[in-house]
């Protein structure tokens, strides 16, 4: 199962500001009633973007100048709350290829890496600058490079960071771990034989 090597993401960005952007806001629970992830395109941030009658709330994602954006610029603790992989799946299936934020919730970060959606951290100041430029010049073509860990756009060249293992996995096309997890069956079975496995006694 060859995976694509993810070394850079190039394109427009869209700001989704605010700290603690929880996964209920990224995808409300009513959209979770699906048995595959195929139907999730377009559901991201649904209640943040639309009123109950379907009219737009004027969220940046729906602003014409941000149409076609591939990078989300977020705040602190992005993706907190529920472990629902539906959240990064909805983001990815809505055409987003990377998220740059101040920090990420652990589970969201792992889920995103595992489906090849890079999540990189930038400082508060860097994100303020990136958001400002994106608002002033929405057509700015940003380059998020995992090779040199920068986010470049216009005159800006902003440092970004991510755990080395995740960067390595994405760059080497090894972000889907299942293949490598199957490489040590004897060691796994040795542990399986040794570790207790609760069974009913009545």
């Amino acid at each position, binding site marked *: 199962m060859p995976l694509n090597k993810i070394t850079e993401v190039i394109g427009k960005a869209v700001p989704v500001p*605010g700290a603690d952007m929880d996964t209920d806001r990224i995808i409300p629970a009513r959209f979770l*009633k*699906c048995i595959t992830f195929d139907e999730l395109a377009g559901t991201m941030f649904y209640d943040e973007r639309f009123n109950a009658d379907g009219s737009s709330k004027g969220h940046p994602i729906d602003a014409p100048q941000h149409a076609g954006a591939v990078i989300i610029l977020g705040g602190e603790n992005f993706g*907190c709350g529920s*472990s629902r992989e539906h959240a*990064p799946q909805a983001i990815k299936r809505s055409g987003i290829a990377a998220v740059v934020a101040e920090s990420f919730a652990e589970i969201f970060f792992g889920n995103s890496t595992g*489906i090849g959606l890079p999540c990189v951290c930038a400082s508060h100041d860097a994100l303020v600058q990136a958001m400002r430029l994106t608002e002033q010049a929405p057509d700015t073509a940003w380059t998020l490079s995992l090779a040199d860990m920068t986010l470049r756009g216009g005159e800006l060249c902003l440092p970004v960071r991510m755990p080395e293992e*995740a960067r390595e996995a994405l760059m080497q096309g090894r972000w889907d771990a299942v293949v490598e997890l199957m490489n040590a069956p004897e060691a796994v079975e040795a542990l399986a034989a040794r*570790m207790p496995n609760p*069974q009913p006694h009545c």
Partner: protein
Amino acid sequence: MGKTLYRKIWDAHTVGTLPDGRTQLFIDSLYLHEVTSPQAFAMLRELGLPVLHPERCYATPDHIIPTDDRTEPYADKRAATMLSELRRNCKEHGIRLFDMPSGQQGIVHMVMPELGITQPGMTIVCGDSHTATHGAVGSIAMGIGTTQVRDVLATQTLAMSPLKVRAVRVTGTLRPGVTAKDVALHIIGRLGAKGGLGYAYEFCGSTIEDMDMDARLTLCNLAIEGAARCGYINPDDKTFAYLKGRPYAPTGAAWDAAVERWKSFASDADAEYDDVVEFRAEDIEPTVTWGISPDMSIGIGEVVPSPEDAPDAESRKARTAALEYMKLSPGTPIEGLPVNVVFIGSCTNGHISDFRAVAPLLRGRKVAPGVRALAVPGSQMTDRQCREEGIDTIFREAGFEWRLPGCSMCLAMNADKLVGDEICASTSNRNFKGRQGSPTGRTLLMSPVMAAAAAVTGCVADARKVFQLGE
């Protein structure tokens, strides 16, 4: 230098190091429910892989289950499909399913400890962030995504990096009317909703040692609301007493050996922590959230805070947005705020001890006019116990609807939802925007006794005054 429980369990379950530097970690138990598993089984099918250790998987339906009428087929066709997918996948792969007729169905985080499947020293994962709950018995338990559920189904292992460990020490005696829920909300309020990023929380200290197991489950359940992917408590005699005699707990000589083994996982006295924070039990008030993140909380005697008093520009913005969503003004006392709905239940506070604590307070009292009050036991076993003890009758006579077990109004994936901008006094775990099923619904998190006080007065109230819980 000694080791923490986290490190001991991590080391004992390490298979090896992957090329990208992550650890391949052996997983003892995978818990499954209907919302985050069907996609994983579909991925497995696509790869043509079997379930490697079906005997290490345990499933129960909880999120979408109706709590009123369970006659099948369900009116909600999508919910019915998710339930039938769970049944099909468990049957096809030989996975144990605690379905409705078993009498052992319930919220996954309630059922597994109650059956004694959750044991000390284990690595436990589930496609649900509140898997942190199971750390209460002294295990590493964490929420994972669906692709990782697939990884565990296929390989019984995960690619992970270890967390740092923060000792969260609480000492002293909790005052009357103050519960594990208040302790958790207090800690999250002080350390922040993102305070635990990168950490596992070891809850320790005399206050924690004094807590019964249900209270410990509540506390660890909420670790994730403070961004700690797992929270745990060192196993002790209370842990062993809780497990003894449960259907999946060892018996006879195997029990004695298990207890010895379990004890060995407890953090060493000289264990080194990456961080230590301390709290005093006496400082903790009955706590209520006022905003849209679990760290936006205040003591019952306090007023809704002002953005002007926020420590920085970001929190100022967050507070302003929260106040706008909650339709609250700074300076408003939280006590006396009218509520429309009361929800007692969820994996946080749907335990037998939660209902036992509330029942005597409700005896002879009535839910305030105009308030809709739901009591939803977390599991069929808890429901049975409540019925045997007459607790359900007390709740019903007070005007509560006594429902069947499930996640219910914690995340409103079934028919139990807020309507419009109703305010709910809720014993659940998240006050996020829209969390309880209405995109404009408002949630105030609190303990079961505080929710009971809100039910009988029709507004946020100090349970200590309402029920005369004296010092």
